[in-house]
């Protein structure tokens, strides 16, 4: 299957500033892909390159099987820019009509499609107001509606919840899930890790213009672990051939009993077994490395080895 996005060593230099060093990205059709990185990592530059808004200094890439920036491919992409601004003197409905025309939607299908995305973005009852009077959150919803017009094969969302309250963020998660169900690939550009963790099938973490980690979230975050705070554990229970070995490799860490990795479904059985051995269980901590931990490790870890600028 043609990948939604494929880039090889994509590079962008502005004067003496390396905005993007060498980006290798691969996004499958129909997946939600998280594009993560600290501010200034090159995320927005990468998105602009994919859309042809700026040209790469070096490297190459395809979007929906066409060279990056290609006009026919752009007809199948929905894009929410980081600085979402729409004509303040148009109503929300008129902005969407303009974008439907620019996207080349069949005239007969436009009205129904505009109603669909207005409802999806929660703007149906304010569609006839001028966008100049909209709050930032409303404008961002309008941008989302525009990005989803016409069921694009690829939706590129640059920080889609930066102006939204928690309710709005929840709505956006639902919208992204629905876009995936309708078959769109979604490139979600964000530094809100919780959001990415909840939504994305795979992620890439960029730092100083390079991908420093990428893959399925489960693989990146490592295997699930459980830690038990126990007292009165009989000696030998932690032995390699002891009664707990069947759950996984056992270790004692600062008074905590840790099994890593463990099948999360077996945690209740583990607790029952430990109690059965006569031990007292004070706490159970089903820990997994969070995306935030991983992110901080990667970003801090490479802070000392900045590429030459």
């Amino acid at each position, binding site marked *: 299957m043609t990948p939604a996005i494929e880039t090889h060593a994509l590079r962008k230099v502005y004067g003496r500033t390396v905005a993007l060093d060498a980006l290798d990205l691969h996004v499958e059709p129909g997946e939600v892909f998280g594009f993560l990185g600290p501010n200034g990592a090159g995320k927005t530059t990468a998105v602009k390159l994919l859309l042809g*808004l700026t*040209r790469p200094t070096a490297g190459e890439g395809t979007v929906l099987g066409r060279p990056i920036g290609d006009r026919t491919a*752009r007809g199948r992409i929905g894009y929410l820019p980081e600085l*979402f*601004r*729409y*004509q303040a003197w148009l109503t929300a409905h008129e902005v969407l009509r303009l974008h439907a025309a*620019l*996207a*080349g939607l069949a005239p007969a299908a436009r009205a129904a499609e505009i109603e669909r995305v207005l409802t999806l973005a929660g703007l149906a009852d304010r569609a006839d107001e001028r966008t100049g009077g909209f709050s930032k959150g409303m404008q961002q919803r309008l941008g989302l509606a525009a990005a989803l017009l016409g069921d694009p094969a690829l939706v590129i969302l640059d920080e889609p919840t930066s102006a939204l309250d928690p309710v709005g963020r929840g709505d956006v998660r639902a919208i992204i899930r629905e876009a995936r169900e309708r078959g769109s690939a979604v490139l979600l550009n964000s530094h809100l890790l919780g959001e990415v963790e909840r939504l994305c099938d795979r992620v890439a973490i960029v730092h100083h213009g390079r991908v420093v980690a990428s893959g399925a979230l489960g693989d990146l975050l490592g295997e699930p672990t459980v830690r038990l705070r126990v007292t009165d554990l009989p000696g030998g229970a932690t032995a390699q051939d002891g009664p707990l070995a069947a759950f996984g490799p056992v270790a004692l860490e600062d008074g905590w009993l840790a099994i890593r990795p463990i099948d999360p479904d077996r945690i209740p059985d583990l607790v029952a077994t430990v109690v059965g051995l006569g031990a007292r269980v004070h706490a159970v901590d089903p820990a997994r490395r969070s995306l935030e931990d991983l992110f901080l490790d990667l970003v801090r870890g490479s802070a000392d080895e900045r590429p030459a600028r």
Partner: protein
Amino acid sequence: MTPRLVLAIAGLTVREFTRRRVLWVLLGLSLASVALVGWGVERLVSIARAEGAEELQVRIGVSQVLILIAFMFSFVLAMSAAFLAAPAIASDVETGTVHAMLARPLRRSDLVLGRWLGLSAVVAGYAVLSGALAIIVVRLVSGHAPPEPQVAVAFLALQAIAVLTLALALGSRLPSMAAGAITVVLFGLGWFAGVLGSVAIAFDAAPLAAATDIVRVLIPTDGLWRGVVYGLEPPVVLLLMEASNVQALQANPFFASAPPPAAFVAWSVAWVVLVLGAGIAAFGRREL
């Protein structure tokens, strides 16, 4: 080029000016100016006739007042054109409005062409409407009708289109303030070169005439203004000028003894095309 998209952008541009009340403010102001002109010319004519002036004197006087009014109007029109066109692309880039649009299958050239078409329609429409209205009102109150009003109005519109093209092209690369300011300065320079060139011819200063000719070719707005004057100048004034044979009169920026040569008009149209093309090329290479 995709004509459908060019027209969509042009329509959007026209709608922008009506929605942002620019068009209505301009029309309101010019209606007020035309009313004032009508009143003023009527007063002048009444007073002159009451004092027993010859009808020919009255008509010549009115024709010169009309040319002066046309000059002021052409100046206002050029300023309006510069300040409407300079931000047409520049401010869309500055605010980021253009990013969402250009991520669609819209060519940058189509965006610039659509903007140009919409601006030209608004500015030329405004020039034709206000110019025609002023000429009609003056005719009603004084009886004076310029010989070729359609020529005058056409040159007025062409001059405004030249100014807006320059401002739009500069704004495709520069911030809107800079594009507007540069356009106004160049327009002033063109006018200045026109006056200076006339003076140079009147006093036989060949090197100065050559220098100003170059500026008038590079910035054709003043040459187009001469077309407006020619369209408004009554033949009797031309005859009187020829009879008196005073060379210094050639230095008068409000006088034109001949229409701009066809080659100059052709060059002006080509100039608009070239400047617009340069703007499209510059915007095409711009990093957004």
